[in-house]
């Protein structure tokens, strides 16, 4: 356990000094700052006002940015470290492969999740200072969603990093995974499939398997409880799950998927060449 925390700490320090982390933090901090600057808390859309409005917008933007950011930065730094000889040296020290791999994931997780959470928490803090009501239940659920989706894409990123032997291949594969999930969002391919009379069960199964769609649906559910915007698929979701159960599913499924991907990555890492 000591080695795992040492590795996690090491990864955190390396990340804090990396340029990607600076950009990453600036992007999410910048989004919140811009939303405040444009007076979003004072606007009213779909009956939402105040911080709820800001959080809804923030979560939608996070859905677009967070997964690709986590994927690309994870595969770039992990595959990049391997290519540059960092693995050759650090893995010549007496650290177990389990402590190394999972320590890296823990460190990386804190680094990708905390800035996103900190931006949202800063928004809540600022709202309290300005005497704007903070919707705490929404805040907590969104925190859970962000934590869950970060873990999911981190796990997938680690799996890709383990499988790809070069930074270019890893980056290409990460982009492809993200693009595939994006294409299977209800807005794009899923809409076309439904239009083409594909069985709703197939469409819904795809939607439920796609962590991006699950995240999106759960996020939408908070301000559109009947899921009017995603069309007929919503009926199937409500028939199978019901609203509250789907919210739980949206938190648990990405974590399970991320853990399976990371576990697969670890098995491959342990069996293959390390540097």
């Amino acid at each position: 356990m000591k080695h795992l925390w040492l590795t996690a700490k090491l990864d955190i320090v390396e990340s804090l000094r990396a340029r990607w982390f600076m950009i990453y933090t600036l992007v999410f901090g910048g989004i919140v700052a811009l939303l405040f600057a444009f007076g979003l808390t004072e606007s009213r859309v779909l009956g939402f006002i105040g911080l709820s409005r800001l959080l809804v917008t923030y979560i939608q933007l996070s859905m677009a940015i967070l997964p690709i950011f986590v994927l690309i930065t994870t595969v770039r730094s992990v595959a990049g470290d391997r290519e540059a000889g960092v693995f050759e040296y650090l893995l010549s020290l007496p650290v177990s492969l389990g402590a190394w791999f999972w320590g890296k994931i823990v460190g990386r997780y804190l680094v990708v999740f905390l800035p996103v959470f900190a931006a949202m928490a800063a928004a809540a803090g600022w709202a309290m200072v300005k005497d704007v009501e903070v919707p705490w239940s929404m805040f907590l659920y969104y925190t859970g969603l962000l934590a869950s989706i970060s873990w999911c894409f981190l796990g997938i990123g680690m799996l890709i990093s383990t499988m790809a032997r070069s930074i270019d291949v890893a980056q290409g594969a990460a982009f492809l995974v993200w693009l595939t999930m994006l294409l299977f969002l209800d807005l794009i391919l899923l809409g076309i499939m439904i239009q083409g009379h594909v069985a709703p069960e197939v469409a819904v199964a795809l939607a439920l398997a796609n962590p991006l769609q699950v995240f999106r649906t759960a996020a939408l559910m908070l301000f559109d409880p009947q899921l009017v915007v995603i069309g007929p698929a919503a009926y199937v979701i409500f028939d199978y799950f019901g609203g509250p159960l789907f919210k739980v599913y949206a938190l648990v499924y990405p974590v399970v998927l991320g853990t399976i991907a990371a576990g697969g990555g670890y098995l491959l890492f342990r069996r293959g060449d390390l540097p």
Partner: protein
Amino acid sequence: MIQFNHVSKTFKRNRVLDDIDLKIGLGERIALVGSNGAGKTTLIRCLLGEYVYDGEVAVNGLTPRRERTEVLARIGFVPQLPPPLKMPVGQLVGFAASLCNSEVKRMEDIAQRLGLDLGKIARLPFVKLSGGMKQKLLIAIAMGRDTNVLVMDEPAANLDPDARHIFFELLAERLANTTMLISSHRLDEVAPLVNRVLEMDRGKVVLDDRVADDASLSGKLACRLTLRRPEEAIAKALAGWSFRDTGNGTEWEGLIAGPDRLRFLGMLSRYVGLLARMSMEEIERGGGQ
């Protein structure tokens, strides 16, 4: 102590190690030489448990891949190319000391002997250090702990002559209970350090030879040179070896570490036309024969 039994390694149909059989005993100092692509780095990575391979590798009966923490706790490794780590030097040393159950102080002391003050550079990112400083730090990490095996890839390539001499002294202090595997492209770089030479070519050991072991690792030679005329190029080269000009650029004297004599003569050979006279005299025998 170290055994390679029919070890082969293939990358996408390219056989990089081909049925290697080797036994290396405690206290042996081995030069692993060969051209690029000969298989030296792959052999080292198999020994460090970083590659999977066909055959068996054992260090004191343990498998580096399966029992990696036990095996690697006894192996100090200095890579040829320093890793581009962004972490501060202090943290790298702390991390390594903690993993190796050693003390930061031991690593600091070795670094100090090599002329590197870790206190002054503790907050600097490792990647920002000069090539020589990185090399000294990696040597300090590898030697500032309890090891039976030292695996070093061109370890002295970036060191200045003074640091090289200290490095040879550090090696001499460990001769009795340490096996050393020193990899290099050129035999003349490492020949004075070793008592056995393994030459690799296309994945095979093509030469396995014992060598005369008379050079003292920590000894020194007093050298005097007389040049036909002053010349800026050789003056600069000799200053790099900490030689003193004792006669208007034509008379020079200085000390050379015993194992560095071949390297020094290699440097002098570039200016052989300028040499009128030279002498080398062993003044400190030191240990490590």
